[in-house]
């Protein structure tokens, strides 16, 4: 089928199936899925500028669906989400500025590529180790009334450090079970997520979700739901900027989203059946997949 805005021929069924897969991943892990959808759209023949913008607006639609489902399940901490908005937007701008500065130096592909590989691999290895240790520890603890294991965090040293930051104002996050935390800790974590969203593209859920768990001590289910809310903000902001520059094919995004809408709901519903450490363990290989994709792109573009 011909899409007149980007001028490409793509089978709409493939777009729907791609959307469905990304939707399930997004609803389950609280990520945008750009590490998968970006390279897939590119391989379907879409020019790269359209890939980035179209992917972002599709992520917004998918995250709205998944976030609504997580809200029904009580997995969104709105107070935390609101406190993160400013850091996310400022971080996103800084990330875009860093890209522009690297473009001027002519080293953008290499620096962004190597950073992405280092960050993705680090998150994967650490996440796999921590969640495996947490699963081993959780076997010794009793299940709750629903037969669900308690969300155990093995590596909580950084979270304790962030909770102990004495800078005012300090707020309480009842939904996340946090008595007092400095708002600056939250701003810093959201800034990091926003920065990587602007620097590496996508909604940066692969950074923000683990950062909320390991740095702020947010329970995994709440981190997944709240991250989706943040993705709507960061990806929405990026999508509008890209649309203004003519980088969004809304028809491709709408077709992809028909699959993503159902996938996102399914993924969100399935989170009820897995404990926090299981979700984190299943999440661990995803950033590694992103690292492999980036490494492959770097190597092939180096040779071409």
């Amino acid at each position, binding site marked *: *089928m011909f*899409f*007149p*805005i980007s001028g490409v021929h793509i089978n*709409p*069924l493939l777009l*729907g199936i791609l959307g469905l897969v990304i939707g399930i991943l997004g609803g389950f892990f609280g990520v945008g899925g750009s590490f998968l959808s970006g390279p897939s759209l590119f391989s379907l023949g879409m020019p790269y500028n359209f890939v980035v913008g179209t992917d972002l*607006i*599709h992520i*917004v*639609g*998918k995250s*709205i*669906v998944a976030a*609504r*489902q997580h809200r029904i399940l009580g997995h969104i901490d709105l107070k935390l989400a609101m406190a993160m908005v400013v850091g996310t937007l400022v971080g996103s701008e800084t990330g875009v500025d860093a890209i522009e500065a690297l473009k001027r130096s002519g080293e953008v592909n290499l620096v962004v590529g190597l950073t992405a590989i280092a960050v993705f691999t680090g998150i994967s290895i650490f996440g796999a180790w921590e969640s495996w240790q947490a699963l081993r520890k959780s076997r010794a603890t009793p299940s709750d009334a*629903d037969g669900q294991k308690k969300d155990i965090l093995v590596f909580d040293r950084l979270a304790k450090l962030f909770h102990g930051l004495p800078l005012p104002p300090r707020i309480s996050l009842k939904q996340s079970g946090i008595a007092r935390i400095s708002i600056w800790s939250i701003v810093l974590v959201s800034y990091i997520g926003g920065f990587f969203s602007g620097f590496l593209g996508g909604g940066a859920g692969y950074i923000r979700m683990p950062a909320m768990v390991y740095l702020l001590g947010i329970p995994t289910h709440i981190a997944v739901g709240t991250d989706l809310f943040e993705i709507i903000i960061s990806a*929405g902001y990026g*999508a*509008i900027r890209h*649309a*203004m520059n*003519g980088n*969004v094919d*809304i*028809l491709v*995004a*709408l*077709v992809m*989203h*028909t*699959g993503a*809408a*159902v996938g996102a*709901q*399914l993924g969100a*519903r*399935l989170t*009820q*059946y897995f404990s926090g450490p299981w979700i984190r363990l299943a999440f661990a290989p995803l950033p590694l997949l992103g690292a492999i994709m980036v490494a492959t792109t770097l190597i092939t573009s180096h040779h071409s």
Partner: protein
Amino acid sequence: MKEPIQKVLHYIAIELVVYAILAIAYFCLVLQFLGTWLAELFHEQRIYYVVASVLLMTGQAIGLERLVTGLSHIIRSGKK
């Protein structure tokens, strides 16, 4: 209270089939009726294109979420 996972997966399979039929009909309609108009907006009035894109995506997200939720309720109540 949570339903058993096997039951949930069974409902999901039925929902997917019904949803796929509706979704295919829907995106054929969207491409047929909105394709040319959106392409013209894209080339001639970028601001309106941006506004239309955001509204369409948000509207579709909310509409499809309600559709999937509604389908889920209908299939579950039909099975019970």
